[in-house]
């Protein structure tokens, strides 16, 4: 049991180290014409400019592992309903993301449904807003 825990923790730490090294993404890596919903447990949540960073522990056919997501700026998130305290470490949340073009796990967070079923972010998913979402993602818009 202890060994399993150690392996899991090491895997999680390794995953976190890997994903952290990939911070400072840019919007060019994401497909803003698509949206994917991912549910997981919050391990890291940083609401800052120029980009929101969320690390979730996601469980799927790969087992539990860490996936990092980038999102809109703190300013955009505030305008779209986010307030301090809505997301905490250990919360189970769902992020709606523009997926990575590479098809790897992760994506650009467009909106979030919190553990208390609160919503923040952009509601529209229409293709005509893709440019708007991408522009916002670029840190200037």
């Amino acid at each position, binding site marked *: 049991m202890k060994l399993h825990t150690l392996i899991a923790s090491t895997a999680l730490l390794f995953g976190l180290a890997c994903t952290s090294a990939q911070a*400072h993404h840019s919007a060019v890596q994401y497909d803003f014409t698509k949206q994917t919903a991912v549910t997981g447990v919050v391990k890291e949540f940083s609401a*800052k400019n120029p980009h929101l960073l969320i690390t979730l522990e996601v469980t799927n056919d790969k087992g539990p592992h860490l996936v990092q997501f980038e999102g809109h700026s703190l300013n*955009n998130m505030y305008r779209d309903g986010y307030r301090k305290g809505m997301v905490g470490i250990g919360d189970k949340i769902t992020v709606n993301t523009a997926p990575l073009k590479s098809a790897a796990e992760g994506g650009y967070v467009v909106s979030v449904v919190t553990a208390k079923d609160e919503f923040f972010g952009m509601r529209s998913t229409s293709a*005509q807003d893709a440019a*708007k979402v991408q522009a916002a993602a670029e840190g*200037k818009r």
Partner: protein
Amino acid sequence: MKMSVFKHLAIGAGLCFAASITSAANAQPDFTGLWTNGPPAPGAGPVVARGTPPPPLPMLPQAKARVEAYQTLVRESGASPGGSCLGTGMPGSMQGSGGYPMEIIQRPDQLTLIYEAHGELRHIYLGDRNAKQEDRVPGRDGYSSGRWEGDTLVVETDNLVDQVDQRYAHSENATIVERYHLNGTDKQGRRILTAEVVMTDPDFYSEPVKFTKNWAQVPNGRLLPYECAEEIWSERLSELAKKAGVKLP
């Protein structure tokens, strides 16, 4: 005697009336307030997303080679000035404003433009408020001098620095002229502010580059603070802690 008093009163009233007409005719519009993206200018599309190819530009071969080299350098990572918490610079700062709002504070001798993203700031000085040419500090947003032509604010920007990382890349010799005027209201009754922009740069373009941008006023709107460098600072602290072999305080 009584006639003389009436005469003087009449002349005085006439002068006051004439002065009020002249004053009204010279009154400049007040652009003070918060502005967001307005109705698209013809041909501009709903929102200009970065990464969207700009319209065909009359770019000179040497400049084009530099811009392509820059784009090749950043393509894979998608790195951008904004991603490193650096302001966009002119003309990108005014083009992009509205996605994040822009605030204008207007005084008779100075307009202050605050772009929420990166807290980018432009001062537009009028008349004697202007600095001497030799005292103007070059930068990404350059130095801006304004004047009124009727109800149009004309802003001339020089002292720019070379920027290949712009949607409209340019050299340090670029000059930009913006012409701001109120342009009626939209369907929601919001005032519309329009800027017609011409950038001239003999080092980059064979002819002037032109575009138009519209904003809509946000009544009683407020800018949000935009702190950006916190993550960069955190990483710097982590580096220092690692080098010192200590934990982060």
